[in-house]
């Protein structure tokens, strides 16, 4: 574990591989979105990444962009987001995934502290901020330490050497291992870069959650089999919300689909872990 360990996030990875789903809060509207997030929890989520939508999501592919547009059009704002967190009936840790400008602008005082304070009060456990590199993360890291929240960083296939050290010295909770180049989005294959990435960061003592492109239980199985401590899954779930909404399906139907997809992914992860444990023990 790295130098920062403020919240309960790492614990979620302690016993078995963690399933970390993502949804944009408020997609397509506040009420339905509460149902969907709760369905993920029922389906076996160990941590949930909740997107607070920003108007310029430069790290997202088209699926999550669309979710962000729907959520913004539904009236989502930072304050509504904190309300949303309060209204959620789940008992897994929640991570806020958003862009730095929203964190920076929040509250009267300039800088990230007011946002973090409010997040802590709302019961959030940490943050992922895709446009905040370690070099610029000082003030947010400090505020997280002050309020006991985790700050998750993303490690890309291209991250190496000094950069990797710097990120690893700042991360807490878990590290988000980006499985491939590019932006978020479900893919039909598992990136060959995953194992290589996991190997590169093996020595660092922090849970490693792999994301970007995971779509099925099989993907999850293979990734956990390759050594991941958890899987992060976003676009395929967001698609369930988006497609169902577009087709006019009921909230319950969509929630059921999410729950069963979550189950599939969690089961996959567990299978991967089972394959691995004996091997690991064999070493």
């Amino acid at each position, binding site marked *: 574990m790295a130098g920062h360990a403020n919240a309960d996030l790492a614990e979620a990875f302690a016993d078995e591989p963690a399933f970390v789903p993502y949804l944009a809060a408020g997609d397509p509207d506040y009420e339905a979105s509460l149902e969907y997030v709760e369905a993920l929890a029922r389906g076996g989520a160990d941590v949930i990444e909740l997107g607070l939508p920003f108007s310029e999501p430069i790290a997202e592919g088209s699926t999550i962009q669309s979710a962000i547009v729907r959520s913004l059009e539904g009236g989502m704002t930072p304050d509504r987001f904190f309300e949303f967190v309060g209204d959620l009936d789940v008992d897994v840790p929640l991570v806020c995934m958003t862009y730095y400008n929203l964190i920076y602008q929040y509250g009267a005082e300039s800088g990230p502290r007011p946002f973090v304070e409010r997040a802590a009060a709302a019961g959030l456990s940490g943050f992922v901020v895709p446009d905040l590199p370690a070099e610029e993360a000082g003030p947010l890291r400090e505020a997280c330490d002050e309020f006991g929240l985790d700050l998750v960083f993303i490690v890309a296939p291209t991250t190496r050497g000094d950069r990797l050290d710097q990120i690893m010295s700042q991360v807490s909770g878990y590290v988000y291992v980006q499985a491939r180049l590019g*932006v978020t989005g479900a893919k039909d294959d598992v990136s060959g870069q995953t194992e290589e990435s996991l190997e590169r960061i093996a020595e660092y003592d922090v849970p490693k959650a792999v994301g970007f492109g995971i779509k099925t239980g099989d993907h999850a199985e293979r990734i956990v089999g390759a050594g991941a401590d958890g899987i992060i899954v976003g676009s395929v779930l967001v698609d369930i919300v988006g497609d169902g909404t577009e087709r006019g399906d009921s909230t319950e139907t969509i929630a059921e689909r999410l729950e069963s997809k979550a189950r599939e992914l969690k089961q996959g992860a567990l299978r991967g872990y089972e394959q691995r444990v004996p091997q690991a023990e064999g070493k």
Partner: protein
Amino acid sequence: MTQKYADGKFGEYGGQYVPEVLMPAIEELTDAYERYVLENEDGFMDEFRARLRDFGGRPTPTQYAERLSERYDREVYLKREDLLHGGAHKLNNALGQVLLAKYMGKERIVAETGAGQHGTATAMAAAHLDMPCEIYMGERDINRQRPNVFRMRLNGSAVNPVTTGRGTLKEAISETMRDWATNVEDTHYVIGSIVGPHPFPAMVRDFQAVISEEARRQLDEQTGGLPDAVLACAGGGSNTMGTFANFVDDDGVELYAVEAGGSSLEVDEEEGVAPNSASLSTGEEGVLHGARTKVLQDSDGQIMESHSVSAGLDYAGVGPELARLVDDGRVQAVNVGDVSALEGFHRLSQLEGIIPALETAHAFGYLEEHSEELGETIVVNVSGRGDKDLETVIEETEKRDIENAPSMAEFSGGI
């Protein structure tokens, strides 16, 4: 050529707020910038200068404007970037970056474009240097700027429509960053202004600084001295910083960044819309497209849609260096609205025989309104020519009944 702020910070502005996946590319680019641009390694800057001369047509003149000088009873000089190949200052930067990409061994170029000026400049540079090139452009802009889309296609570039959001420049930048994040290993992103993460703001400024390098020398040759005021329109701010760079240290020279005041400086928070693009004048500090800078945003920090009669100024952010210079009081952030810009457009066309870009026209709007405060000798940058704007001018002139315009009646249906 200024070499300031090579660390990528302009006071609290600047930085590198980008997804981790891009950081190695940005570090590689920073390294290349320092070696090739700042140190002239392998004669990069010599080759850049030679190509700007032979392909781009540099130097562009600094022309004494007789009739404007008479009108305002002061000496008005025009820096003629409208004569650069492609019709705007944009090529200085595009050529520099595509050449740099070649030196870096990149095999593919991506770029965003709004009005299409940066896109056409990049497509020209890419054809000239034999680099495959894809341009991202908002779908709405594609429909508004068809001739520029066609020009890019003629030069062999692909034009990829961006359908997210409102389909304009802001979304095109985001989308180009996504492409870059996906193809970061063999691809260079040619950003179109002094915006984005370091080293872009410094690098684009250095490529554009040739404007003020020439203007300063040419004015000295003609007047034996420095101007009292330098005016340039500001969107992202590349022509502005290019025009200011070599005057920043001359304390006696007042620098005016003229933004698009649009139809009003008031914003509509509800709609997330600013009816202007005056981020220097009215924006708040924030993080957009990889840099901390002045941004048009609502109180939550969501970026607003900007508006201007000139598509090329229509951007919610501005270069971090300009934001800093404005805070420092070194640059005056001013603005004029759509009407004043249109009047400026017609005035320059009629009095000087130069049809300026609508972006450029803002500087002439400000000159008209404030000539008396600008001292004896004034340099105005003519950042581009107006051929691309003819349809817009017809429409917007008719709509507003611009006083000094010729009758638009016979062109009502478009041209």
